[in-house]
C-alpha cells in the first residue's frame, strides 16, 4: 500500500486501481472454475463407482441396479413415450398442489387478519392441525373423494395449507405499523389498507412460501400416488417396488430429481421477476 506517495499523477493511480480490479476478477473466475471442476469430478466418480460396483457384483445389482441400466430404461420410456403421461400427471398434481395451497393459505390468512376475533378463536385449532401429520388423513380423502387426481391434490393441500396460513398470517401482523398509519391517516378503509399495505408488504414472504410449498407438495403427491394412483411417478415407484424392479424405482427417482429441480428453478425465476426493483430498506 505504501507503493504510492501523496504526490502521484491521476493517471498512474487509476492504472493501478484498474490493475487491482483485473487481478481480483481473474482470481474470482479461477475460483469459480475450480468449484465447477470439483463438482463434476464428484458426479463422475459417483456414477463411475456405482456402475463398476453394479457390474462387478460388489453390490447387489437387483437392489441397487446401476447407471447404464437406469439410463437404458429411461431411453426406452422416452422412445415409447410412456414416460410423459406419468410425468404430466405428477407435475400437474404438484403444480396444482403448491399454487392452490399458497392461494388458499393466503385467503385464510386474510380472513384471520380481517376478523381478529376469528383468529383468536381458531388459534388453538390451528396449532393442533399444524402439529398433526396431515398426510395421515390421506385414506379418509381417498374414501371421501374417490381414488384419483382429486384425492391426491387434496392430500397435497392438507400438507401445504395450514403452514402457509400460519406463515402468511404472522407476516401480515408484522407489517410495519408506520406504513399502516400512513394510509389510515389518509382515511383508508380496511380493504384499502389490505390492498395498499398488507399485501404488497407481505408479497416477498408469499412468494417464498410458494417455494417452500413446491417441496411440501412433492411429499403430498408422492404419498397420494403411493396410496391410489394408476398413473404418475409415485405410482411407478410403488409398481417397481411391487414387481421388484428397482431399476424402475431408481429411474423414477432420477426423473423426480430433475423435474423437481426444474420446477424449483422456475419458481425462483418467477420470484426474481415479481420482486425485482424493490429492496428492503
Amino acid at each position: 500500500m505504501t507503493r504510492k506517495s501523496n504526490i502521484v499523477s491521476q493517471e498512474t493511480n487509476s492504472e493501478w486501481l484498474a490493475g487491482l480490479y483485473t487481478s481480483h476478477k481473474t482470481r474470482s473466475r479461477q475460483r469459480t472454475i475450480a468449484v465447477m471442476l470439483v463438482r463434476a469430478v464428484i458426479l463422475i466418480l459417483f456414477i463411475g463407482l456405482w456402475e463398476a460396483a453394479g457390474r462387478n457384483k460388489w453390490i447387489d445389482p437387483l437392489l441397487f441396479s446401476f447407471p447404464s441400466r437406469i439410463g437404458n430404461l429411461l431411453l426406452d420410456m422416452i422412445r415409447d413415450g410412456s414416460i410423459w403421461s406419468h410425468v404430466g400427471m405428477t407435475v400437474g398434481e404438484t403444480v396444482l398442489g403448491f399454487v392452490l395451497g399458497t392461494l388458499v393459505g393466503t385467503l385464510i390468512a386474510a380472513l384471520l387478519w380481517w376478523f381478529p376475533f376469528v383468529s383468536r378463536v381458531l388459534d388453538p385449532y390451528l396449532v393442533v392441525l399444524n402439529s398433526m401429520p396431515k398426510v395421515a388423513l390421506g385414506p379418509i380423502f381417498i374414501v371421501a373423494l374417490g381414488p384419483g387426481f382429486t384425492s391426491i391434490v387434496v392430500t397435497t393441500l392438507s400438507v401445504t395449507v395450514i403452514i402457509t396460513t400460519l406463515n402468511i398470517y404472522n407476516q401480515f401482523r408484522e407489517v410495519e405499523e408506520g406504513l399502516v398509519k400512513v394510509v389510515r391517516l389518509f382515511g383508508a378503509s380496511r380493504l384499502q389498507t389490505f390492498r395498499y399495505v398488507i399485501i404488497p408488504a407481505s408479497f416477498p414472504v408469499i412468494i417464498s412460501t410458494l417455494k417452500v410449498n413446491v417441496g411440501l407438495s412433492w411429499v403430498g403427491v408422492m404419498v397420494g400416488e403411493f396410496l391410489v394412483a394408476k398413473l404418475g411417478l409415485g405410482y411407478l415407484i410403488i409398481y417397481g417396488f411391487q414387481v421388484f424392479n428397482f431399476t424402475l424405482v431408481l429411474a423414477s427417482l432420477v426423473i423426480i430429481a430433475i423435474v423437481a429441480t426444474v420446477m424449483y428453478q422456475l419458481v425462483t425465476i418467477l420470484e426474481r421477476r415479481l420482486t425485482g426493483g424493490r429492496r428492503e430498506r
Partner: protein
Amino acid sequence: MPDHGKLRLHNVTHVYVNDGGASLAVDSLNLTVSQGEFVSLVGPSGCGKTTVLHLIAGLLRPTRGEVTIGGAPVTEPSASVGYMLQQDYLFPWRTIQDNATIGLAINGKLTPASKSRVRMLLQELELSGTELRYPHELSGGMRQRVALARTLATEPDVMLLDEPFSALDMHIKLQLEDLVWDTIRRRGQTAVLVTHDLAEAAAMSDRIIVLGRNPGRIRLALEVPEELRRTAPMEARRHPSFQPLFERLWEEMDIEDVAASVVDARTERNGQHDEKV
C-alpha cells in the same frame, strides 16, 4: 386570539385503557388555533404531545370532550388533515411518484391533472428526476421531502407535524425546517408542530404551548414576537429576539422537569404513553 378558530379542542380528555390499567394521558385540554396560525407543542416526554396530535388527526377519539376543525367535529382521519410522521415511512415497493400520490389514490382522486400537480410539487421540493426511483435509492433528507410531498398532495388545510425533523442530520434538519415553514406559509395552512427541540419551536411558530406532564395540561402559552414570526427558521435563530424567547422556554422546561421529578419520586406512575398510538 379570535373566537372562531380553525381548529379547536374543547375540554379534551384522553385515557389509555389496557391490560395494565387505565391512565390519564391528556386532561381537560382547551386549545384554539386560528386559520393560518402555526402552533408548537413542547413539553417533557410523557406529556401527551403525540396523543394530542393523534386526537386532532382523528386516529384517536377523545374519551371526553370534542375536537373540531372548521366547526365540524373530527371523528376519523381524513385527507384534509395532513400528518407528517417522525420517520418518512415511504412504501419500499412504490416509486417516488407512486409514494407521493398514494393519498390521492386512496381518496379516488388520481387523475391526470392531480398527477401532474404532484409532479410540480416534487419539482418544487427539489425532487425532480427521482419520480421513477425507489425510496432506498434516496438519502434521508430527500425521503422526508417525499413524505412532505405525499402529505401536501391531497391539499390539506391543516398540517400536523409529529417531530418530522428529529431523525435527520443537523444541517439537513435546518434546511428542511425552512422548506416546511415556507411551504406551509405560502399555502396559508394551519399547522401544529410537536417537538422536543425548543429552538425549533421558537424558530418556526407563531405561538408555543408548553405542556406539563402526567397528565397533559397546558402550563404556559407563549406568543412569538411579530418580527420572529415573519422570519424563516434558519434566519430566525440569528435574530436578536430569538435568544430571550429560547431562554424563557428553557427556564419553563427546567421548572417543569424539577416539578416532575418531585412528583415522580413521590408517586410511581406508569407514564410514557407518549409514544403509543
